[in-house]
C-alpha cells in the first residue's frame, strides 16, 4: 500500500513539475510590456539632454511623442546618443509608439511620467 502511494505521489509530483516548467516557458513568450522604472529614467535623462522637446503648458504638463526622439528604426535618435531606449511592445507584441504625459512639479527636480498612453495605436 505504501509503495503504491509513493509511486502515485512521484508520478503526480513529476507531472506537476513538468507542467510548471511548461507554464514558465510559456510565460516567456510575450515580451514584458515595459519597464516603468527604465522608461521614467529615460524620460528624465532625455529632459537633461534635450529640454527643447519638452514643451510644458501653464499647468506644467507636456505630451512627448515617442517618435520625437527615435530614428526611423525606432531606436533613440543618434543625436541623443548619451541615453538609449529599447523598442517596447505591449503584451500582444504590438509596438508601443504612443506618447508620454510628463508633469513638472515645482517641488521636485524629477519629472513625473504618466505612461498609460505609450501603447496607444496612433494612426500615423
Amino acid at each position: 500500500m505504501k509503495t503504491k502511494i509513493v509511486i502515485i505521489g512521484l508520478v503526480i509530483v513529476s507531472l506537476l513539475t513538468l507542467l510548471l516548467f511548461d507554464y514558465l516557458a510559456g510565460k516567456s513568450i510575450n515580451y514584458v510590456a515595459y519597464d516603468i522604472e527604465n522608461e521614467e529614467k529615460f524620460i528624465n535623462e532625455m529632459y537633461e539632454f534635450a529640454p527643447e522637446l519638452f514643451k510644458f503648458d501653464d499647468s506644467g504638463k507636456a505630451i512627448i511623442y515617442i517618435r520625437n526622439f527615435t530614428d526611423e528604426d525606432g531606436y533613440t535618435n543618434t543625436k541623443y546618443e548619451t541615453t538609449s531606449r529599447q523598442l517596447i511592445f505591449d503584451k500582444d507584441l504590438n509596438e508601443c509608439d504612443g506618447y508620454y504625459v510628463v508633469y513638472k512639479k515645482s517641488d521636485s527636480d524629477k519629472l513625473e511620467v504618466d505612461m498609460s498612453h505609450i501603447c496607444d495605436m496612433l494612426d500615423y
Partner: protein
Amino acid sequence: MDDSISSILTKAFIFYFCECLVLWFLMAGYTANYDKLATTIYINGTEINYYGNDSYRNYIFPIRIVNHIDSMHPKTDLELSNKYIIKLTECEVYYESSGLRKNNNLGNNCGEKNDHELKFKIVDESSFTMKIYRKNKLIYDGEFVSDVTDYISEKGRYYFHIYGKRRAGIISNVESHFAFNVVIGGGNYED
C-alpha cells in the same frame, strides 16, 4: 506515518523533483535544435519588417522552447493603393557550398534578395490565422487572407499579427507569431 518513512518520502520527492528539473533542461537543449524556417512577408511587393517568435511544443513531454525572431523595427511605410495583397513565404535554408541545413534563420528571408551563399527551399507547412488592429480596435480576427483590401480602407496605421502552426515530428508542433505594423499613405493625422 512514522518519522523514518516520512523522511524517506521527503527525500524521494526532492530527488524526483531534481530529476525532472535535469530532464527538462536536457530535453530543452535537445529540442532547441528543432527545424526552423525562415519567413518573408511582403505587402504589395514591399518586404515587411516584422518582430516575432517561434514556440516549439512537445505533447508527450510537456516542453516548450521559445525562439525570438527579433530582427528589425516592425514598422513599414506603404503607399496608398486600391489593393493590398500580403504574400507570406516560408522556406528551409541551406548552405550553397555544403548543402547542409542552416537552422538559425534569424534575419534571413526566403532568397528573393540574392544571397549567393545560401539556397532556399520554399515549403508550405504551416496553417495561418491573422488579426488586424487599428487605433486599439480589433478589425479582423480569422483565417489568414492574402487580400486585405477590405480592412485597409484609408490612410492610417494598421497593426498585423500572423499566427502560424506546423507539425514538427509526430508528437510536437511549432507555433509562430509575426507582428508588424504598416503606415499607409503617410498615416492619418486627424486624431
